[in-house]
């Protein structure tokens, strides 16, 4: 047994690698064996694995950004785990001054959310070019 394979015990297969393995199964084995709606859904399922992987990578940054925003715009009230909800409700109640700083936060947040959920969406490229250098 080589040194490499000794290191690769079952517990060493990372979540990313597991996702890759499942994606390979869906695209290479399941998809060709299915037809119609099921085949379509296999492709959707493979894409969903991409969302999971990207949320794993970028989710903590998004959570931190939202928590900081809640601290800034709802000082004293902010509970970090529900920052987006608190900000949304305060917006609905018109309790936040939506100045350019707040708009900048929303743009920054949205670049992360878009990168997680649907990085290939055409508007994202436009937004990246416009907003990436602003922050």
């Amino acid at each position, binding site marked *: 047994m080589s040194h490499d394979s000794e290191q690769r015990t079952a517990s060493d297969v990372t979540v990313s690698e597991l996702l890759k393995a499942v994606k390979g199964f869906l695209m290479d084995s399941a998809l060709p064996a299915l037809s119609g709606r099921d085949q379509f859904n296999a492709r959707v*399922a493979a894409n969903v694995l991409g969302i999971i992987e990207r949320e794993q990578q970028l989710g903590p940054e998004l959570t931190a950004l939202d928590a900081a925003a809640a601290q800034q715009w709802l000082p004293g009230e902010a509970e970090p785990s529900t920052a987006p909800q608190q900000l*949304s409700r305060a917006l*609905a109640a018109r309790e936040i001054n939506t100045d350019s700083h707040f708009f900048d936060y929303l743009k920054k*947040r949205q670049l992360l959310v*878009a990168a997680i*959920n*649907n990085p290939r969406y*055409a*508007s994202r490229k436009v937004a990246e070019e416009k907003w990436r250098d602003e922050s």
Partner: protein
Amino acid sequence: MSSDQLTALLNSALTECLAGEVPGEQVMQLERLSGGANNETWRLMWGSTPLILRRRPFSADSIDQLEGNILGLSLVDEAAVIQLVTSTSVPVPEIHAVFDASHPIGEAFVMGFIPGESIPQKWLVDDAYEVSRSRLAFQCGEALGRIHRVDCSLLPANIGPSTLDKRFVAAQKRLHAYGDISPVMQFGLNWLIDHAPNEAPCVLLHGDFRTGNLLVDEQGLAGVLDWELTHQGPAEEDLGYLCANVWRFGQLHKPVGGFGEYDELIAGYASTAGWTPELSTIRYWEIFAALSWGLVCQTMGALWHSGNGDVERAAVARRRSEAELDILLLIEEWKNA
């Protein structure tokens, strides 16, 4: 429901409905078409005639308590609207049979099959449709002008006039009901409320008139499909909706549906409607359309949570981020204009 079960139910129902109208004896080649996260669409052959079945696979009860028109009409009302539009020269399929929710098939209707290409990724880019694309924005304007002139007093009772204020209240209720998870959606709704145009007369709107719901052939517009979001509202709403980023399928440089220019759409519209809409009002409705798409995505998520739907519906919930991105881009553009 399996396709065998559905075939059996259709065989008995259609034998009666299609007698003397469409020659044939039994359903053949029943096949579920991909896409459509809300209603199912099936293709079938009856004798040598291709037909399309639209069917709602779930009960709408779980979301009935939420006001608004996101999930759309009953298929019975949708069929009635399509039949009404048949009197204009807008190309729509012929309705052959309608079943209400008490029928074993479920709420559904059967309609004629119009040849043409519906898949945007094909007709938006393929050279074979180049001439077609160059005419399409004008033709879409013409068709919308005709739809908007349909006599609203003939509509099913469920399709009544509405006001922007009611729409805002309904949207707010939805955002709350879905857990207020998106500050961007809320910011967008606030902006739309603060920049609302003056109330305009209500006309019959298709409500989902966009690339993806149009059938296109080498001559241009061959069919207008998917009338489930039909409602009454201001004319510019349909025009702005057609121009929304999410329905340009990546062809962002072509503002009308990914294939045309604003002035072509407006000229086509004026030619049949008899008046010329303002571009700025159309652009307002583009932002409204972005919010609406976000709400549709959230509704898909809520439906999935209530046990209705497959992995596609769960995945569509995440496409809310497209709407959010467009809301911010468009509001920024508006500010800088």
